[in-house]
């Protein structure tokens, strides 16, 4: 059961990292789009 927690935490860390990468990319793209329109 212990190793389940290890895999769980590794998977969660990867997911949180991926999510915040996508989130910040989304904000940057939005800024560029606004700049392009003006």
């Amino acid at each position, binding site marked *: 059961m212990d*190793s*389940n*927690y290890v*895999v*769980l935490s590794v*998977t*969660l860390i990867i*997911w*949180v990292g991926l*999510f915040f990468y*996508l*989130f910040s*990319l*989304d904000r940057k*793209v939005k800024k*560029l*789009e606004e700049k*392009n329109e003006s």
Partner: protein
Amino acid sequence: MNMWWKIIIFLGMSAVIVSAFLTASPMRAANSLGPADVYRIFYFHVPQAWVASLAFVLSMIYSIRFLKTRNMEYDTKALTANKLGVMFAIVAMVTGSIFAKMTWGEFWNWSEIREVSVFILLLIYGGYFALRSAIADPDTRANLSAVISIIFAVAALFLIFVLPRIYSVFSQHPSDSIIDKSGQITMGPTVRMIFFSSLIMFTALFFWIYNLSIRVARLTANKLLENK
């Protein structure tokens, strides 16, 4: 995509990951090859393969639209869908390979039809990208790759869903882990709940990445036009 969607995807996928590892394994120890805990990868491996096939179908739809309208926007959408489809197919192949090592004993075996079929799938899409980069004229490139996307999407669905079932003699891969031959869902209530949540979350995540990739492609195209 607005803020709420992102929060739902974040919480939903986190809940899927946590419950995939903290509930009982989807496979009973008596029936499992290797440790039953390994079967938890099923919650991620199957949605990844599903998203890959969804992407190839999406590319086919946009390619048909492109051929009808000759609007270059659809060419970008079809190309992006194919890129993401290949990405998810690679991810599904890697998780499948890990799963194979733990249950069948080897990461890769050329007599396993599933592994051969995903290899062929990646090869033909490699051909798609090679073709795209070999044609300089944008109109010719878009026309040819639209036709090829339509053919390849059919081939992809055949390689993913049909071929391993026809040659099931050469496959240890289960084909009844979601629905059995009579069309009934084979999972228990908890497993079903986590599995379908995972399917929905992976699909939502795919559309988020897809939306972002298209916007980046659009910005890049605008920049290239400005520089000319």
